[in-house]
């Protein structure tokens, strides 16, 4: 079952020596609950939520512990039942002081009553779907963590004709979406149908890379008889799961620079998000757990269904601990190897969007030395959106914001393909990210 549907550019890190999916691909998802969880208030894109419990309180499973703040705000729910140990700043992956609520698990898993199940996605009232998703605190689970109810809100003058479910999972190492599609395909289709009904969309496409034939088969079976749902195999190539690439491949449309997918009448959701939508709509269950792939230098690489807020150290312990001496652990990455974030320490808690934990040894984590650019053009070939990375790199090094912007650095999707392929090991992607942040900050300053 191979497919020729793809975009231009890209790289093949999976075919190279970094095939990281093999150890976890065949492993059934295991449930895991840790003794304590540290639930961050800022797990989604947008302002962090306001904690509404205090130390010493007893909370039940699914109880709201953080109230939404601002237009992109999202509720946070307790992922275990038990006693609140602390409310205060902790080290997160991106910030040394992120507001969080720490709960000691009493392992009773008592559900709080709060959310109302809507029942069957095909018959429930369509206008209640998005509010239910919002109440359940669902955000994008593929990485960007954009609040899903905002994504599913179509403003005046806009319309959506296609919802794409992203099951490409093009990242190295990660198999959580793969396992989810195999084990809960029906739920994923339910979630897609719920989103389609909420927005009155007639077409839903589940896009899957052709290196997962079993998942394609499973989803085809699950989609049988469901109105407007179609499974589309795509060629295996990184970054096939990039939002812009996916839209281009599935619909033939390009999102204009600076615009959103909805401007070309498309909404892209991760398969994990669709599953969370189904849980919220059918059962009234808030988003309190997710599947995370734990792999690399751990004794038993696995896919775990973990409670939001579980620390990396607990996850590793659940997989038999590090397979190398602690002193030899060189890097822990949250997410995949191409776009994941490096962890400052293994006490960092898992958020709603963290789909993987990859552990590297010191030798694997050593960065190769940067040498002069030999103009081989591999980065130009690899760029999925047609930038000229080697030249951008010089402009970024010279801090030439104007020229870098003129060369479309803002269109860079930070996929990491150019850095991956560069034989001179030039630091390309990271420079572009820094430059993008700087230009965005400058623009903000200019506005406000």
């Amino acid at each position, binding site marked *: 079952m191979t497919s020729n549907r793809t975009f231009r550019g890209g790289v093949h*890190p999976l075919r190279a020596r970094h095939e990281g999916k093999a150890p976890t691909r065949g492993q059934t998802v295991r449930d895991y609950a840790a003794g304590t969880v540290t639930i961050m208030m800022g797990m989604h894109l947008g302002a962090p939520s306001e904690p509404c419990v205090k130390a010493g309180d007893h909370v039940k499973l699914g109880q709201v512990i953080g109230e939404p703040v601002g237009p992109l705000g999202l509720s946070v729910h307790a992922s275990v039942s038990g006693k609140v140990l602390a409310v205060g700043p902790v080290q997160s992956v991106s910030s040394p002081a992120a507001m969080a609520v720490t709960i000691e698990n009493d392992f009773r898993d008592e559900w709080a009553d709060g959310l109302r199940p809507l029942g069957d996605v095909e018959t429930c009232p369509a206008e209640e779907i998005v509010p239910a998703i919002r109440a359940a605190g669902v955000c994008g689970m593929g990485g960007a963590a954009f609040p899903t109810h905002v994504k599913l809100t179509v403003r005046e003058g806009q319309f959506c004709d296609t919802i794409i479910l992203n099951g490409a999972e093009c990242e190295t190492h990660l198999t959580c979406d793969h396992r989810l599609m195999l084990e809960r395909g029906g739920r994923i289709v339910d979630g897609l149908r719920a989103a389609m009904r909420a927005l009155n969309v007639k077409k839903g496409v589940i896009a899957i890379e052709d290196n997962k034939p079993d998942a394609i088969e499973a989803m085809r079976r699950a989609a049988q008889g469901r109105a407007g749902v179609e499974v589309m195999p795509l060629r295996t190539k990184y970054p096939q799961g990039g939002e812009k690439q996916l839209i281009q491949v599935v619909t033939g449309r390009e999102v204009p620079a600076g615009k959103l997918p909805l401007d070309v009448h498309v909404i892209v959701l991760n398969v994990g998000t669709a599953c969370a939508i189904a849980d919220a709509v059918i059962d009234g269950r808030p988003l309190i757990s997710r599947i995370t792939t734990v792999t690399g230098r751990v004794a038993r690489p696995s896919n775990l269904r973990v409670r939001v807020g579980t620390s990396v150290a607990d996850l590793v312990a659940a997989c038999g601990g590090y397979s190398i001496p602690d002193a030899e652990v060189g890097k822990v990455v949250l997410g995949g190897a191409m776009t994941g974030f*490096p962890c400052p320490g293994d006490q960092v808690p898992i958020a709603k969007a963290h789909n993987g934990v990859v552990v590297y040894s010191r030798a694997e984590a050593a960065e190769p030395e940067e040498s002069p650019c*030999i103009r081989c053009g591999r980065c130009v070939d690899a760029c999925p959106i047609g930038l000229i990375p080697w030249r951008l790199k010089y402009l970024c090094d010279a801090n030439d914001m104007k020229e870098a912007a003129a060369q479309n650095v803002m269109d860079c999707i930070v996929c990491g393909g150019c850095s991956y392929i560069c034989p001179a090991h030039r630091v390309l992607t990271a420079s572009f990210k820094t430059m993008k942040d700087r230009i965005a900050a400058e623009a903000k300053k200019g506005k406000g």
Partner: protein
Amino acid sequence: MNLRMSPAPHVYSSQSTRALMLNVIIALLPCAVAGVWHFGSGALTLILASTLSAVLAECLWQKLAGRRVLIGDLSAVVTGLILGLNLPPSAPWWLAVLGSAFAVVVVKGLFGGLGDNFVNPALAARAMLLVSWPKYMTAWVAPAGWNACVDAVSAATPLASPGSFTAWQLFLGDVPGSIGETCKLAILLGLAFLLLTKTVSWRIPVTLTASAFAFSWIFGGDPVAAILSGGVLFAAVFMATDYVTCPMSAAGQLVYAACAGLLIVLIRRYGLYPEGVTFAILLMNIAAPLIDRCVRRRVYGHGKGANAHNG
């Protein structure tokens, strides 16, 4: 636990500058062996002299200019080796040394080192030697084994006397010519290796050869002999594909190689010099930045295609 915090991506492909250069060196070895087989001790001396002096010159220049010494990236070896294989087997050793020094210091070093030169160092050095010492650079000997250059039986190349060699002779390199360029079998072996290891893409070698073939037919020559004589194939595989000096976009590379093929035929047919390969590729090197500017991929989300669906 002291974790590294370097940003994504966290994996790298196995290709490095040094590995790529090593691939090119390995691909050049069959040509070197064939050259020594046909032209003997003189060829061996030249290859060694040019390679060693290129490395030495790179090392000295980088020390003198106060830069990091990067001879470990093997690019100087490639330059020296290619220059050596581009010399007539009977050329004096000092020619190889001067050429290598010119290639590494003037053509590459003065511009900032590897990646910063805009013409291929080996080709520019060959052109320099050709215009400076034409009597050595256009003297050819017959391929006669180990003592070919000692006996120095002067002979005409297939380009100077077309029709005097069979296609088979041309293919195996049993003809007078530059050390590395005569044996087409060895060059094709090298090409196969480069393609298998993904060191170069097929675009430039194939397009250049096809273009030379087509244009020599259009201009009334024997197309098969045209690509089997002289340095077309060697240049198409090893010199036109030089990363640093060819265009970077796929379409640009096609344009570049096609124009180079045309220029080769034009210079061979109408020019003063019997072999146009060196100059043709040098000229296209100069045009490469312009080609890259003109042939550009549309950026995703910009221009026509992006707005096709809006409205």
